[in-house]
C-alpha cells in the first residue's frame, strides 16, 4: 500500500504497541502530527516543554517496563529533549525519541531550525539514526524499538527529515526476525557462563559474611522473585541502590535498604565488613562506593550484569557473569540446590545475621521528631502510611529525593522512579505524570523539592488538561537544600546562592492551573491534607509542605570518603571504634 513516510511512522508505532506519544509539534514534524490526527489510534500528550515530554516517556517506561516514546520538531525542539535523553541513557531507560529534521537537501546548510541532533546525542544514546531514504524508515524505526528494549535498555533517537515524511512509498513493515537479522553486530547476551555460575554458587555456599548488592539491572529484568528466593535460601542480607529499590521488598527482615553516600549505617557496615559481595545489576557507581580502595575491602566479588562493559569497570571482580539478571539468578539458584543448598559455615552466618541486627538497632534510620515544625522525613512517612506503602513515588533531585528513598518503604519493582544517574532536577513532575498514565490503577505521588518543581512546573497544566490525578508533594524548605547541606558541612555555612524563599504561592499556582492546592505548616496538618488529596481522582493535587528549613540528610558518607567516615544521624562524625565488627 502506498502511503506517506509520516503514515509509516504511525503504522510502526502501532505495530510496536505504543499507547502514548509524549510530544510537542513544529514545522519539521508536522506531517507526522497530521498522520497522527488522521489515524486517531494513538493517544498524544501535548507537553508544555519537550524536556517534559522526554521525562514523561521515561516515567512511563520506568513504571511499566515498556518502551516510552517522545517526539519533537527539529532544532530547538530536539535540543530541548537532550537532558531527558542523557537522563535515559544514564539510567538505562528504554525510550525512542523521534525528531523532525529539515528536508534532506537542506541538511548541512544551517537551514532554519536545523541542528545536528544525531551528532549532539551520539554519546548519550544507545544508538541513533538519521533516515536518508524512505525505504529504510520502517526498518530503522523497528530497529530503534528493538535496540531500546533489549540487552541493557537505553534511549534510541530517530531523526527524520521532513521530505522523508512527505514521500510516498509502498515499503512493507519488516518482521521481528528481519529486524534481528538486519543487526548482525548486535547480540544482547542473556545466558551467563555456566562455569562462572558454578564458581559463584561455591563462593556463596562457603561465604561467612555475604551481602547481596542489588541495582537497577534487577528491576529491568524483573528478578524480585529470584532475589528473594536466593536471599532466603542462603540467608544473605540484601542492600539495594537507589536504582535497585523495590527489587527486594524493604520490609523483609533481610533488607538492609540503601547503601552508599546516603545509605543506612547497617547497609554500609555490612558492605564494609562482608567477605563476599554479590553485585546484581549494579555498576559500582562512585555515589555507592565512596573511596574505592576501602569499598568492601575484605570481600571477594561476584558481579552479575547484562553489560560486559560494566564489569570490572570501577573495581576488579573475582567472578564476572555476563547475562540477564533474572536468567542468571535462576540458574545460580538451581546450581546451589543441586549442590545441596548447604551453608558451609552456619555458625558464622548466624553470627553475621545477628551482628547486622545489632547494627540495625544501634543506628536505625531515624530523625529528630518535632510537634512544632514539620520534619520532611515525617511527611514521607505519613505519605507511606496513608498510601499503605502501595503508591508509586517519583521524585526530583535533592534532599527530598533522598528522604523519599529512605523513609518510604518500597515493596515492588518500578515503585521508586527517580533520576539516579544524571540527577536531573525537574525530573519528578513529568516522570510522575508518565508513570500515572502507564499505571492508572496505582496512586502516584511526586515527592518534589521546591527548586526541582520550578524547573518543569509547566507540566502541571499538562496534567490538568489530561485529567491525570497525580499527587505532588512539595517538600518546601525554601532552599536548594542539598547544596545548602554541602555548604553547611563543607563550606562553613557560606550559603552561596541557595535561598529560594522568594517563590510563588504554590497553592494559588495550582489553583490558577485548575488543579487543587493544599498547604501544611504544622505537623498535625500533614496527615489531613494527604487524606484530602487522596480523595481527589479527576485532577492533579499539589501539597505544599512547609518543612524545617535546615534539616540535613543523614547518615552521609562525604564524597570520595570511606564508609568509616560516615556522619551519623545525630550529626556525630565517624563510626564508633567498637561498633566496628572485624576492624580493629
Amino acid at each position, binding site marked *: 500500500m502506498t502511503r506517506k513516510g509520516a503514515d509509516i511512522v504511525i503504522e510502526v508505532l502501532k505495530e510496536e504497541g505504543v499507547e502514548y506519544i509524549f510530544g510537542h509539534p513544529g514545522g519539521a514534524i508536522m506531517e507526522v502530527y497530521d498522520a497522527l490526527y488522521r489515524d486517531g489510534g494513538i493517544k498524544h500528550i501535548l507537553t508544555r516543554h519537550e524536556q517534559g515530554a522526554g521525562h514523561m516517556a521515561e516515567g512511563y517506561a520506568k513504571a511499566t517496563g515498556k518502551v516510552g516514546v517522545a517526539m519533537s520538531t527539529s532544532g530547538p525542539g530536539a535540543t530541548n529533549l537532550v537532558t531527558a535523553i542523557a537522563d535515559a541513557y544514564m539510567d538505562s531507560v528504554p525510550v525512542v525519541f523521534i525528531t523532525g529534521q529539515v528536508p534532506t537537501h537542506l541538511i548541512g546548510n544551517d537551514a532554519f531550525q536545523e541542528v545536528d541532533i544525531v551528532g549532539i546525542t*551520539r554519546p548519550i544514546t544507545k544508538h541513533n539514526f*538519521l533516515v536518508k531514504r524512505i525505504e529504510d524508515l520502517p526498518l530503522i524505526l523497528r530497529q530503534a524499538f528493538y535496540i531500546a528494549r533489549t540487552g541493557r535498555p537505553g534511549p534510541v533517537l530517530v531523526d527524520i527529515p521532513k521530505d522523508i515524511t512527505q514521500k510516498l512509498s509502498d515499503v512493507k513493515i519488516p518482521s521481528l526476525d528481519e529486524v534481528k537479522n538486519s543487526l548482525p*553486530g548486535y547480540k544482547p547476551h542473556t545466558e551467563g557462563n555456566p562455569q562462572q555460575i558454578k564458581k559463584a554458587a561455591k563462593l556463596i555456599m562457603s561465604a*561467612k559474611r555475604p551481602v547481596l548488592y542489588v541495582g537497577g539491572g534487577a528491576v529491568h529484568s524483573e528478578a524480585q522473585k529470584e532475589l528473594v528466593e536466593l536471599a532466603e535460601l542462603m540467608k544473605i542480607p540484601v542492600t539495594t541502590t537507589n536504582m535497585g529499590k523495590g527489587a527486594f521488598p524493604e520490609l523483609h527482615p533481610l533488607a538492609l535498604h540503601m547503601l552508599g553516600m546516603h545509605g543506612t549505617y547497617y547497609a554500609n557496615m555490612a558492605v564494609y565488613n562482608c567477605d563476599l559481595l554479590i553485585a546484581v545489576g549494579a555498576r559500582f557507581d562512585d555515589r555507592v562506593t565512596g573511596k574505592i580502595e*576501602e569499598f568492601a575491602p575484605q570481600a571477594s566479588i561476584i558481579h552479575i550484569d547484562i553489560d*560486559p*562493559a560494566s564489569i570490572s569497570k570501577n*573495581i576488579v571482580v573475582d567472578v564476572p557473569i555476563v547475562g540477564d539478571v533474572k536468567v542468571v539468578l535462576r540458574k545460580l539458584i538451581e546450581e546451589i540446590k543441586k549442590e545441596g543448598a548447604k551453608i558451609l559455615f552456619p555458625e558464622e552466618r548466624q553470627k553475621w545475621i545477628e551482628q547486622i541486627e545489632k547494627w540495625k538497632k544501634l543506628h536505625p534510620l531515624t530523625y529528630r521528631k518535632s510537634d512544632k515544625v514539620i520534619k520532611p522525613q515525617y511527611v514521607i512517612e505519613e505519605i507511606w502510611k496513608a498510601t499503605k506503602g502501595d503508591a508509586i513515588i517519583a521524585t526530583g533531585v535533592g534532599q527530598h529525593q533522598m528522604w523519599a528513598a529512605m523513609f518510604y518503604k518500597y515493596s515492588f519493582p518500578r515503585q521508586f522512579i527517580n533520576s539516579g544517574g544524571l540527577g536531573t532536577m525537574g525530573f519528578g513532575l513529568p516522570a510522575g505524570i508518565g508513570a500515572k498514565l502507564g499505571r492508572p490503577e496505582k496512586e502516584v505521588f511526586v515527592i518534589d523539592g521546591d527548586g526541582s518543581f520550578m524547573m518543569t512546573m509547566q507540566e502541571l497544566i499538562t496534567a490538568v488538561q489530561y485529567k491525570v490525578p497525580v499527587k505532588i508533594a512539595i517538600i518546601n524548605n525554601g532552599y536548594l537544600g542539598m547544596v545548602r547541606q554541602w555548604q553547611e558541612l563543607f563550606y562553613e555555612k557560606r550559603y552561596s546562592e541557595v535561598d529560594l524563599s522568594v517563590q510563588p504561592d504554590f497553592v494559588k499556582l495550582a489553583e490558577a492551573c485548575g488543579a487543587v492546592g493544599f498547604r501544611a505548616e504544622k505537623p498535625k496538618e500533614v496527615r489531613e491534607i494527604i487524606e484530602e488529596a487522596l480523595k481527589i481522582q479527576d485532577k492533579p493535587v499539589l501539597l505544599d509542605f512547609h518543612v524545617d528549613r535546615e534539616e540535613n540528610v543523614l547518615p552521609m558518607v562525604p564524597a570520595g570518603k570511606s564508609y568509616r567516615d560516615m556522619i551519623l544521624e545525630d550529626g556525630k562524625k565517624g563510626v564508633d571504634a567498637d561498633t566496628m565488627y572485624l576492624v580493629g
Partner: protein
Amino acid sequence: MSELNSIEAPTPMIRETKKGSVRKHIITVLVRNELGVLARIATLIAGKGYNIEGLSVGETHEKGISRMTIEVIGDDVVIDQVVKQLRKLIDTLKVRDLTDTPHVERELALIKIHTSTPRARDEVLRITEIFRGRIVDVSQSTYTVEITGTEDKINAFVELVKPFGIMEMARTGKVALKREMANTEEDTSWK
C-alpha cells in the same frame, strides 16, 4: 572490643585497584559501513580523553564491511574499557586489541624529499633501494618516495633522508591483521 572481633583475623583493609601501564595499543575493528560509524568510534575514544594516534579505514572483501585500525596511547585498563564499549556499538562486528597478540602490521608513507644536487639524487635513490621503496614522482628538485613497512622501518627511513630536507610527508596509519597460528586459543567473545 566486641566479642565478635575474635571470629577471624581481618585481611588487609585496602582493596586492590586497577592501574595498568600506559602504552600504545593497536585495535582493529570490523564495522558495518553505516552513516556516522567513524564519528561514533572517534567520539567514544575522545570521550575517554584519549587522542587517536593513527587511523586507517578501508572496505574489506565483503561489501559494506570495512576494517578500521586504530592506534591509541593509553592505560591498559582504560583501553580494555574502550574495547568493551566499542563492542557494544551496534555497528561494530568484531573488535580486537592486537597489542599483545601476534599480528602483522604495515604502514605506507609518501615522502617528498629535496634532491636538487646530483649527489642528493644518488644518495636518496640508494637509500630508497635499500629500504625497498619506490620513487613515484620526480621533479627537477624533488623525489617523492613510496615506502611500506613497519612503523620502525618508516621512522628509520625518515631519519636517514631528513638531512636532505623533507618537504612534505603523508602516512596512512597502520593496517594490521592477527597472525594465524596452529594453536591459537579459541576466541570466545562474540565480537
